[in-house]
């Protein structure tokens, strides 16, 4: 039975949605639809767009924005907040362990091969201590809700999770268009995120840095699908938005080329994959990248956020073991549960998955963004059979999970308010301390019954409210 976030079982409005309901009734569907067009025009003008790889068409597509906010009560948030911090802490502890003594592997809790043979594992990082022992400074955790008290983690994002600009812009647009909704102070603000992010980044400057650290945001360039977000965050933090061509390494320090000559950089918030960071250390054929960057990092001349190799922790095969990590490193029980996952790499897992593929959601271990996944119950028998062949060809490359009854949130339909499935991505900041703004990105599947919320697959976004009491 699908949980509707707006309604009690008997159809009554849940108390945290009372304000939203009042507002919907007061404005009326036609009124809301009119404002929706206005919101879209604002987004288009500002240029908040999102490119979708491999789909052709408009390279700067707009992510659909739904006006109706998604609401969490204070109590719900407190639990989420604890669970998110707990997970972010355990993931970082695991990364430190994996690149040092490997205690959790010695204890037999995670198979060694899964770590050391993992594509995301960076042998170059072994034995290196990143400042503050932090590897993943921004942890984005994808959470789905399947019941009033049931929050489950779909996946972790430890490299460079995107989407936080939508959290900020969605709120900005809502505040601009409906100031009345926020004037009562019911909703916890999120606009301090950029300040918290900058503080976090400065905290992890190399120990040798004695000045106010110079922080930059490294983007692959304006053709990247998340470029808007890169420029937006750099702008709000007041730091330079640099491309690889702007940087060079000399004498174990990283310098940016400015009109007044070279200027030293202390912390790089990089939005570039490990592979393309440094052609000398990683992919030699990369045209992107700053030669020597990794060496400067290991020499303590600069901090990279996230650390190379942090992606190990968000691998879908490693995901299965996160609850174990929480118990092992923190001695606590996980607050947010994992979704049962079958690993096709194991014999039993493979047998079960092939037999039940039509009921399961299957994913590539290294895939992301909803690409290359199969939703069994919604796929044709031919598609299921074809996917089964792909799994047989490379079982270790796939996992499968049950099809979840994702909760639904109110969404503006053609002539009425409809219920659509949604997920949630909060952004946990990890520096010398952990920081989490009360909110995140709610993604919603705009097609009736659809469970795929990825913006690359036609999903939309909404504002997310955490009520103050």
């Amino acid at each position, binding site marked *: 039975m699908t949980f509707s976030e707006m309604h009690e079982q008997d159809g009554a409005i849940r108390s945290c949605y009372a304000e939203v309901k009042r507002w919907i009734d007061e404005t009326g569907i036609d009124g809301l639809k009119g404002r929706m067009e206005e919101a879209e025009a604002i987004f288009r003008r*500002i*240029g908040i767009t999102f490119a979708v790889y491999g789909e052709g068409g408009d390279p700067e597509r707009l992510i659909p924005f739904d006006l109706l906010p998604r609401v969490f009560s204070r109590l719900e948030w407190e639990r989420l907040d604890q669970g998110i911090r707990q997970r972010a802490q355990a993931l970082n502890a695991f990364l430190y362990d994996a690149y040092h003594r490997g205690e959790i592997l010695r204890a037999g809790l995670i198979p060694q091969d899964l770590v050391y043979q993992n594509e995301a594992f960076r042998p170059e990082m072994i034995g290196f201590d990143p400042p503050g022992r932090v590897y993943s400074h921004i942890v984005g955790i994808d959470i789905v809700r399947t019941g009033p008290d049931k929050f489950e983690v779909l996946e972790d994002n430890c490299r460079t999770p995107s989407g936080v600009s939508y959290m900020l812009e969605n709120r900005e647009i809502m505040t601009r268009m409906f100031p009345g909704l926020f004037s009562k102070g019911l909703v916890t603000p999120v606009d301090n995120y950029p300040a918290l992010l900058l503080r976090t980044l400065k905290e992890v400057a190399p120990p040798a840095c004695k000045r106010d650290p110079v922080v930059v945001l490294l983007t692959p360039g*304006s053709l990247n699908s998340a470029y*808007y977000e890169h420029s937006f965050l*750099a702008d709000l933090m007041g730091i330079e*938005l640099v*491309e690889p061509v*702007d940087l060079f390494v000399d004498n174990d320090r990283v310098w940016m*080329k400015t*009109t007044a000559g070279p200027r030293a950089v202390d912390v790089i918030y990089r939005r570039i994959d490990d592979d393309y960071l440094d052609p000398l250390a990683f992919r030699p054929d990369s045209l992107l990248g700053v030669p020597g960057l990794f060496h400067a990092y290991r020499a303590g001349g600069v901090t990279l956020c996230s650390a190379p190799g942090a992606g190990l922790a968000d691998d879908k095969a490693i995901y299965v073991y996160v609850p174990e990590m929480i118990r092992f490193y923190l001695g606590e029980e996980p607050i947010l549960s994992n979704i049962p996952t079958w690993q096709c790499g194991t014999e039993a897992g493979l047998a079960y998955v092939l037999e039940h593929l039509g009921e399961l959601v299957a994913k590539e271990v290294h895939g992301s963004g909803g690409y290359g996944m199969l939703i069994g119950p919604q796929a044709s028998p031919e598609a299921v059979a074809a996917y089964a062949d792909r799994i047989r060809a490379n079982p270790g490359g796939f996992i499968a999970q049950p099809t979840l009854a994702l909760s639904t949130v109110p969404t503006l339909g053609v002539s009425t308010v409809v219920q659509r499935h949604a997920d949630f991505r909060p952004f946990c900041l990890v520096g010398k301390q952990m920081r989490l703004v009360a909110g995140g990105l709610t993604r919603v599947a705009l097609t009736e019954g659809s469970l795929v919320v990825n913006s690359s697959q036609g999903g939309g976004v909404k504002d997310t409210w955490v009520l103050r009491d």
Partner: protein
Amino acid sequence: MLSRTAANLFWMARHLERAESTARLLTMGQRMAVLPGSAYRDEWRSVLRVTGCEPFHTKGGPVTEEDVVRILLLDPENPASIHSCLVRARANGRSVRTKLTQEMWEALNLSWRRFDGYGLSEACQELPALIDWVKTRASVFRGAAETGMLRHEGHDFMRIGGAIERAQMTLRLLDVKYYVLLPETDVVGGGRDHYQWTSVLHALSGIRAYHHVYGGVYSPAHISDFLMVNRAFPRSVAYCVDQMRWHLERLALEHGVLATCHKTVDEVFELLLDGQDGAIFQRGLHETVQQCLKLTNRMANEIAESYYF
């Protein structure tokens, strides 16, 4: 400031200025084409020549309005077409998004797709409206910069880029049309008329301004004086050079260094100063124009070198 940022701001302004100047040229072409005797004057060809786009006219024979609209307004393959300039200005702006204000960005972002797949006959029919639209977009952008942009060095680079492009458009126009302005005694290729003189002023939208400065009388000496050495008319070479000097001086103060480009801009400035009161004719209008073109090109390169573009 990042050198790449400075370079992008510089080029963004150049591309936008180029789009606008080209739009003004098209207005002049249209006006001239409907005047008596236009056929033999081949006014549209001189429009192509001024913009350096004559090679794009490959079919031979006289140049028609349709040819020019295709080449200078729509052609995405021609880097100097208005279409290309708007797309590139926007690409420059996008890669330095954080250095633009919201309003500046919106002005750029609204412009760039206008001519995607625009039909030729449609464009010819609506030409005056399209030209106005281009000029308005440029004005909105400039207005947004005027009242909202931080006066950091990025603003200086942007203004220098715009001033160089504007000066060069005026210089190229004079380079192509200099014979129109020769003293009556050494006329090249037959008699000239009132229309030819005014065409030069129309191309720079300067006819009203000219009247204010010189009264209703047209004379080649006054027109060339107006376009070269007058320091009040914003499309004159002297005015643009004043702008360059002002912003280059700000850069020198900010960086504490005088570079080669500062020497070159002074050289252009003195050249124009020496050309006042008709002296430009004694030295040769055409020679002076060519010298100015050469120096401004050199200066643009020197700016790129001095600030590590």
